[in-house]
């Protein structure tokens, strides 16, 4: 048997290898980072062309017309502006719009929570059908949506006879407007909530249950706070659409001045009567609501981001 060669320092060489490995890795990662940064960046020309196109488009098609609305509204001075807003028929339209929003938004909040919950937390047959149905109002033209309700509840419609016998008016009345608005704004809350709830999962709720919480306590203390921002965001979008909806409401409303005219319908009517300043006055109010909504939305996004950043820094 051959005598073994002098003992090589196994352990030492292994240790030094292990120690040097991270350094090598780090160097490699750094150089990879630099390379990828250079590789993904576009040339300055492409960058500025894209920015100018986007900016120019937004200014010409969005910003200028919006400013013009306010300019036109104030064309005949503040007094005229106030007067046209205070006109009883315009005032009635504003009130009706708010009423419709106050009814249809909460309805869709309840529905949206239920639908999002069902889709995010349960597995059931017909789940994909439900998701498709929620999206339906997005894909159906609002006019068609309005006509659907006329076919259902109009005098010649399926339930027309029964409704007339019981003296219930839906089409050409406030209930029809509420129905049409609710239909059109149906997806907003659910669509915002589904991804939030899906990403949250159901473990927090299960944890609450193991700690003795009832279903209602779990919903109130755990589920609702965790989807808070998604819900607020959905409500804002839903509300904006509820107030601004024209097509579907136009079909079912009947355009009875002072009774079934919402703000968008009233604006159209004033405009067709060549009362442009009054039309623009009301339009500016609607635009203001939209701007407020956007500002609120931006504020919430900013707040959420700040919370997130603070979390990252800790």
């Amino acid at each position, binding site marked *: 048997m051959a005598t*073994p060669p002098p003992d090589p320092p*196994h352990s030492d060489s*292994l240790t030094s290898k*292990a120690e040097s490995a991270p350094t090598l890795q780090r160097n490699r990662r750094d150089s990879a980072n630099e390379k990828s940064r250079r590789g993904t960046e576009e040339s300055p020309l492409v960058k500025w062309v894209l920015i100018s196109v986007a900016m120019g488009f937004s200014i010409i098609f969005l910003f200028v017309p919006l400013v013009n609305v306010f300019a036109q509204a104030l064309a005949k001075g503040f007094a005229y502006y106030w007067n046209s807003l205070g006109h009883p028929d315009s005032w009635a339209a504003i009130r009706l719009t708010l009423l419709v929003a106050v009814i249809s938004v909460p309805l869709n909040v309840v529905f949206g929570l239920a639908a999002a919950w069902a889709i995010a937390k349960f597995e059931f047959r017909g789940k994909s059908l439900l998701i498709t149905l929620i999206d339906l109002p997005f894909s159906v033209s609002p006019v068609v949506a309005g006509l659907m309700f006329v076919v259902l509840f109009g005098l010649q419609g399926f339930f027309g006879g029964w409704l007339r016998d019981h003296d219930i008016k839906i089409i050409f009345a406030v209930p029809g407007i509420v129905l049409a608005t609710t239909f059109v704004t149906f997806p907003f809350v659910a669509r915002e909530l589904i991804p939030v709830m899906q990403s949250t999962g159901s473990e927090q709720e*299960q*944890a*609450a*249950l*193991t700690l003795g919480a009832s279903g209602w306590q779990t919903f109130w203390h755990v589920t609702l*706070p965790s989807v808070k921002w998604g819900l607020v965001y959905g409500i804002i979008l839903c509300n904006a659409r509820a107030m601004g909806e024209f097509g579907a409401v136009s079909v079912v409303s009947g355009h009875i001045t002072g009774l079934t005219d919402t703000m968008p319908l009233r604006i159209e009517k004033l405009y067709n009567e060549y009362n442009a300043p009054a039309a623009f006055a009301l339009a500016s109010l609607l635009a203001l609501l939209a701007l407020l909504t956007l500002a609120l939305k931006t504020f919430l996004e900013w707040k959420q981001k700040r919370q997130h950043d603070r979390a990252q820094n800790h």
Partner: protein
Amino acid sequence: MSIELRNVSKAFGGVSAVNNVSFSIQDGELIALLGPSGGGKTTVLRMIAGLEMPSSGDVFIRGQRMNDISVQQRNIGFVFQNYALFKNMTVFKNIAFGLKIKKWKRQEIQERITELLELFGLQGLENRYPHQLSGGQRQRVAIARALAPKPSVLLLDEPFGAVDAKIRQELREWLVTLHHELNVTTVFVTHDQEEALEVSDRIVIISGGRLVQIGTPREVYDQPANEFVARFIGVMNVLETEVREGLARVGELEFPAPDQPNGQKMRIGFRPYAVQVSSDLTAFRYHAVLRRTFFLGVLLRLELELPSGLIVRTRMTKEEYSVQGLEDGKEVSFQIRQFRVLATETATLLPESDVEYQPPPVLGENI
């Protein structure tokens, strides 16, 4: 008797997840539910908690049948794999949640939480949100939250799965200490045999929805019920042999198999530590080439290749390796001090006599 399962089965939509499992846990025990992923161990844990209801069979906690008792009323503490802390609540509110639900007085809640924060080393973090905590801190908050309402049992689902290796080791030791201090009956799920061996009083091995073995870490390591357990708990060399003239043979290796007919096939298993290696070629009966050395830290893993091509795995400390002057490619001699006859993987419990270690064969005689 703290927890008892009697013939518990669970099927999800016709697919059996847990099949006729029975075992019982004493008061104050620390139990590991060990098994491969998807083997049904988490389902067993969730059935104890009441998060799943058994399809058949009974679950008892402290002698009370739990089948119709909801999770809220079972008085258990459950720690989820990803902790499931309430994201929108501070550490304080997380831990206080169960106490508020149970309508503890404000003063009592304050006292209990102060006590828990201290016990869990979480002082000064009570106003942090979960996303402001490290993985280890999150886990301690999750356990504190589960323990706050003084549950009769603590159930943990893969408690060390979501933290990195170093913290995992600390948490294991900490869990053992905590269990000694509180002495609350604890059941945790793990797929890591090392974790189960290190932490638990007893191990319940579950595979394919069935209970395979229950015993102390020592029992399941030294007397595995079948080949599955033997291979799952620790490393094992497994050889297919054939009996000739009272010896089970494969390649150069021979194991005593008295009273076995010629031609009988036998599966032989032995642990790496049962293999003794020497650089002195006259020391032991078998000769092999040290094919490869794996560095694991204090221990090294050695792969020996016999002339016939058989591979034998063994372990050795760093020091011994140096003293012996070993290196890859070197010729060595070795012997196998202990071995066992294995059944096939699907077989049920072996008779006691087979499970016992055979006395070490006197291999030196033949040289």
